[in-house]
């Protein structure tokens, strides 16, 4: 891309040269053999010097300078007194920058609207005009007093009007019809070169703009600081479109407001004035219609006259394009100037191109912000997690420490209680059994109370130790293949002591096909004894049935009583530690509150489950399952 401007200019130059040489040849070939001697001489003269004109014009890119060269050449070689030439400005539809060679014209209009005066008329009608008697033509405009005749020619290439050329002489014959044909051709040549110059200039500008554009595009691709880029874009817009100021308004989310986000050529205070709303002024209209719009006069334009803040800011002409990323409107980009100015399609396209980059920048900014937001949220989550993990670790450390202290406490407590209990339990027994001398019945009874209380206390200590061991994961089962039947029989015989006094009936129902189970017989006995003593405790009449059933994968042992029952809502509490169901009867019964939780855990350690079915005043059945051995 870097090479293309040079190539383009070179090509344009060569094309111009070829055209010039062609035209020069045309003059040389066509005219020498026709017309009067004087005319022939003039034609030859022109033909000999046309190369000079071509060489002068071919490299010129400034239309005004080109016209100046052409006028000087005409003045020198065409023997005319005065040459006047105007350039045509398509943006304003005016003739501008007049060139005068051969005299000084005071009062010559510097700008002429199309149709005004002879120059304007020629430009508008695009046809040449001959004035034989200058004095009788009031529309001629400023000229020299000695001028007799004038010949006006539009400078046209293809269909493009480029200016107006006027040759004026003191002699009437110098501008006759034959010469007019020649002059027309020269005018065509000049127009061609002017066109070339305009195109060349445009292309050079385009290239410059393109380079500038490339720079923006390149920066865009790696720039995360979108706002800096937006600033560069508005500055580029102002510079490239040569306006006083430029401003980028950002569409506010969830509203119809447009607020300035970047600007150039104005103060922040002025920029603040330029906020807008959908449809409000030209900017608002562009945002609403999502189409470019322009005005040469904000004061007279109906769309903006009463609403535009730009007028307040001293602006007169405005070009606004929407800033769109695909279908999404991000805002509008506007360039404004305090002069009366008609913005062209090309300028609109240029601003559009800048706007598309602004759109990408704004889109990127939004993405970046949402990315930042996501990142912040992620960081927050991560830090929360870190804190949570730290807390969890601390909690775990504290829990481990608490557990260690608890185990230590339980061990110490066990030891410290066992030593005095050893004396309490055994001495009461010694005395009650009469080893320390004869005692009466009442003394025996009281000592038995002391002894049993001591035993109860010991049971409590043992339960707590078991629970502590289970919780610490130190409860190890000593499992070996065992028959359930002798275990149950042994427990039943112990339970008889508990049920006999109440007159309860103890029953045992064994399924015939129960195989040996891999169990810790000591612990299963403990579980069964616990269930039976509970059943005996809470049953006043009726009986207790121990049942063993075989299922597909396990054996279910149940202890059914006809006792007071447990309310449904209380059933889960049964397995809670140190919990006895609140009830008048339950309260009167002694118990550690640990038997059921320990029993449940022993069963679970075996890979089984324990559950309860109960109905108040009907009875309770407590089940536990023991898995069948794999073999």
């Amino acid at each position, binding site marked *: 891309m870097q090479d293309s401007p040079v190539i383009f200019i070179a090509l344009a130059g060569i094309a111009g040269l070829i055209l010039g040489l062609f035209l020069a040849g045309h003059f040389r070939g066509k005219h020498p053999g026709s017309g009067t001697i004087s005319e022939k001489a003039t034609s030859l003269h022109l033909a000999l010097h046309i190369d000079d004109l071509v060489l002068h014009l071919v490299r010129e890119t400034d239309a005004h300078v080109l016209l100046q060269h052409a006028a000087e050449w005409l003045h020198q070689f065409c023997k005319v007194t005065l040459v006047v030439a105007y350039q045509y400005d398509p943006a304003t539809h005016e003739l501008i920058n007049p060139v005068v060679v051969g005299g000084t014209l005071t009062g010559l209009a510097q700008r002429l609207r199309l149709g005004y005066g002879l120059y304007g008329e020629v430009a508008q009608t695009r046809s040449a005009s001959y004035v034989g008697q200058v004095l009788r033509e009031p529309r001629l405009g400023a000229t020299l007093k000695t001028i007799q005749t004038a010949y006006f020619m539009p400078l046209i290439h293809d269909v493009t009007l480029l200016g107006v050329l006027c040759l004026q002489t003191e002699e009437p014959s110098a501008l006759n019809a034959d010469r007019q044909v020649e002059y027309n051709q020269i005018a065509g040549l000049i127009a061609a070169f002017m066109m070339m110059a305009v195109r060349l200039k445009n292309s050079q500008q385009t290239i410059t703009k393109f380079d500038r554009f490339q720079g923006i595009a390149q920066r865009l691709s790696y720039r995360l600081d979108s706002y800096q880029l937006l600033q560069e874009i508005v500055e580029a817009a102002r510079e490239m479109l040569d306006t006083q100021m430029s401003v980028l308004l950002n569409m506010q989310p969830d509203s119809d407001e447009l607020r300035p986000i970047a600007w150039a050529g104005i103060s922040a205070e002025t920029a603040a004035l330029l906020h807008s709303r959908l449809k409000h002024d030209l900017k608002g209209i562009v945002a609403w219609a999502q189409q470019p719009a322009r005005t040469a006069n904000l004061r007279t334009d109906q769309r903006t006259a009463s609403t535009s803040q730009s007028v307040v800011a001293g602006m007169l002409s405005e070009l606004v394009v929407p800033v769109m990323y695909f279908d999404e409107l991000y805002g509008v980009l506007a360039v404004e100037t305090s002069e009366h100015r008609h913005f062209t399609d090309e300028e609109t396209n240029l601003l559009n191109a800048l706007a598309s980059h602004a759109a990408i920048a704004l889109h990127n900014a939004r993405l970046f912000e949402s990315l930042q937001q996501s990142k912040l949220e992620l960081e927050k989550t991560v830090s929360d997690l870190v804190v949570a993990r730290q807390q969890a670790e601390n909690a775990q450390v504290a829990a481990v420490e608490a557990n260690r202290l608890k185990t230590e406490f339980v061990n110490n407590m*066990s030891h410290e209680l*066992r030593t005095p209990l050893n004396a309490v339990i055994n*001495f009461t*027994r010694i005395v009650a059994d009469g080893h320390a001398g004869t005692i009466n019945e009442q003394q025996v009874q009281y000592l038995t109370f002391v002894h049993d209380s001591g035993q109860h206390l010991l049971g409590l200590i043992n339960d707590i130790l078991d629970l502590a061991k289970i919780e610490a994961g130190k409860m*190890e089962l000593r499992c070996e293949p065992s028959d359930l039947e002798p275990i149950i029989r042994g427990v039943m015989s112990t339970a008889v002591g508990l049920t006999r006094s109440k007159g309860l009936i103890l029953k045992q129902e064994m399924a015939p096909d129960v195989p040996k189970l891999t169990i810790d017989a000591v612990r299963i006995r403990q579980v069964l004894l616990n269930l039976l003593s509970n059943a005996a405790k809470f049953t006043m009449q009726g009986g207790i049935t121990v049942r063993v059933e075989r299922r597909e994968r396990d054996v279910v042992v149940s202890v059914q009583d006809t006792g007071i029952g447990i309310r449904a809502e209380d059933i889960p509490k049964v397995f809670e530690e140190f919990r006895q169901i609140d009830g008048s009867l339950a309260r009167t019964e002694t118990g550690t509150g640990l038997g059921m939780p320990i029993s449940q855990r022993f069963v679970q350690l075996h890979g089984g489950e324990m559950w309860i079915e109960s109905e108040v005043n009907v009875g309770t059945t407590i089940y536990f399952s023991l898995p069948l051995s794999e073999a």
Partner: protein
Amino acid sequence: MSTKTILVVEDDVPNAMLIVTLLRISGFRQTIVCASGHEADQYLEDGSRFDLVLLDLQLRGESGYQILTRLRQNPGLTGIPIVAVTAQVMPDEIAHAAQAGFDGFLGKPLNFDHFPDQIGRLLAGERVWEPR
């Protein structure tokens, strides 16, 4: 009535008295109670001979394990069962006792009904491990 002599090392007075009483009820009247290992050493130095030693593990001062080590080296006690009698009945302690070389382990509270049988078996050379 047995003629066996039993050494009881126990520094808690009620517990010492209890063991002596339980032994007497079980038919063992020849018992010597020491409150420390050094006291036991003294008896051994003086020429006393024992058929069974019941040693508390948690004595004030020297621990039961230290006493065990020394008693094992005493030629006067060669082949004599030495039994741990303790309220410390956690698995770790039981394992420790087994490792240290005790011939038996009786947990406190002692079982009034089983005690005579336990002593009988120990005197017969049986290992008795009944923590509860």
